[in-house]
């Protein structure tokens, strides 16, 4: 059984925000909601790195643990999804999530939180697959079509990878071997990089 994961290679991400745009367009997410964002650390300083962040589809998801109405579920592919018909917009998942994935449209009365919205790994939601209801609430269901999330598919530098954790691990291992350096530690040693990467 596959376990779907995202991986963002900090040595490759150029902070183009293509993934953010692709996600917004593919899923038609509401104004003010960004399922994916690119964070740049040490902007303009030596050692600057960018990472594209969205829901990481945790195996032991903190959001699911704290949800007072238990609206989260994990698919057979290891994708963490939630049911917007059950969500009450309390925001607990946002407090608990390490990655800041849960988003809340704030157009409800008294500026209270609306129903939570987050990255679905382009796998829709609990509604009938490819129904208009599913699309309105959760966005595209590319996984059902045998496709990967559009953010990763659109990534120009192939920094953002999405897919089975084992496959991603292999790709990443090859890259590290070819680069001869570990990420976030020694920096990139391009001179030592292999040619078959």
């Amino acid at each position: 059984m596959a376990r779907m994961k995202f991986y963002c290679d900090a040595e490759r991400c150029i902070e183009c925000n293509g993934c953010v745009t692709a996600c917004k367009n593919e899923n038609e997410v509401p104004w003010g909601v960004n399922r994916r964002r690119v964070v740049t650390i040490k902007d303009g300083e030596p050692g600057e790195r960018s990472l594209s962040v969205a829901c990481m589809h945790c195996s032991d998801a903190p959001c699911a643990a704290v949800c007072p109405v238990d609206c989260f579920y994990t698919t057979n592919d290891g994708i963490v999804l939630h049911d917007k018909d059950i969500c009450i917009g309390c925001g607990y998942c946002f407090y608990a999530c390490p990655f800041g994935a849960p988003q809340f449209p704030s157009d409800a009365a008294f500026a209270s939180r609306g129903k939570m919205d987050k990255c679905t790994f382009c796998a829709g939601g609990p509604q009938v697959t490819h129904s208009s209801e599913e699309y309105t609430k959760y966005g595209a269901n590319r996984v059902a079509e045998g496709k990967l999330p559009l953010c990763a598919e659109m990534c120009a530098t192939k920094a953002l990878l999405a897919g089975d954790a084992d496959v991603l691990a292999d790709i990443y291992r090859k890259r590290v071997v070819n680069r001869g350096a570990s990420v976030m530690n020694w920096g990139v040693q391009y001179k030592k990089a292999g040619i078959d990467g």
Partner: protein
Amino acid sequence: MATENRNKSGRIRKIVLFCVFSLLFVVTVPLIPYAIDAYAVAGNKASVEKVAALEHPAINLWNDVRQRNGRTQGLTQVQGVDSGVLINKAGEDWRRFRIEQLVPYGAWFMGGIFGAIVVYYLLKGTQMMPGGSTGVRIPRTSLNQRTAHWFTAGVFWLLAVTGLILLYGRFVLIPILGPEGFAATASACKEMHNLFGPLFVLAVVAMFVLFIKGNMFNFGDLKWFAKGGGMFGGHVSAGKFNAGEKTWFWLVMIFGTALCVSGLILVVAALGFGRETLSLSHMVHGISAVLLIAVSFGHIYLGTIGVEGTLDSMTTGSVDAAWAKAHHDQWYAEMTNDSDAVEAADQEQDSGLVEGGVAKPEAGT
């Protein structure tokens, strides 16, 4: 007359016992899933480990970000709350607090206090007025004070019930109502809690203004504490409010203020408070709420079935002279010396007191 009284008090006791046990049931039910969970953990351990063994390629990367005291605050093009924060370190602390401490310890604490009160009541029963009712009334609370009290009580219980449903509903109500049914309940509770919550600020302010007089601690209160408030017998001297009532007043003031401040932050979260502020507010809110709910059991017990005659001060606004003499002797002395009306009434009932003194021991036995 005596048998009638006995039948009546027996029926009241039956009703009270029924209420007590049904409430006890409600309080203990949330604990059952923990027992089941602890039992099931042993069996599930193997499969959980198997899943965890699949290492995410990003684990090292994120651990680097998180554990090497690296900078987690960055820049991003996306506008939003904390959107520049790469990893939210406070999240795990908050989650562990809520799941591992607030939920189980809160249930044990509230259930424990409740159970202790039930045991105390079953052992001691209602504390009757010594010598029985005299029929002489001494004014104790003003209409404003009573209004503020019941307003506070109403808002407090509305918020307590909706809050407890949000805290324990996942474990108790989902099995009963189903996920969709509970979602509707929880959504209503959340909206009520958020909309009526700000009223509690008014309640705390009103309580402070109207009840601060007489609620300052003095040396006599140490004696009251030393004697356990007369819980184990013996007479304790007190002014208008005894040390227990003063403690309750100050608990409501301190933790009520904490609830108001943290609650208002949580209500207007959309104004852009960060997650660290919000999760800290939530911790303060949870601890204060559980504490006040648990202590309020004691307050309600003493105000209703615990001590005969106490409820009058919050319904009619006046109390029986015998009650005042027994529980607030210093205040009783003040009232009887200062007020001519009470003194006159006192003399008037002197003859009646003799009859009452004879009649009551029968009813008491």
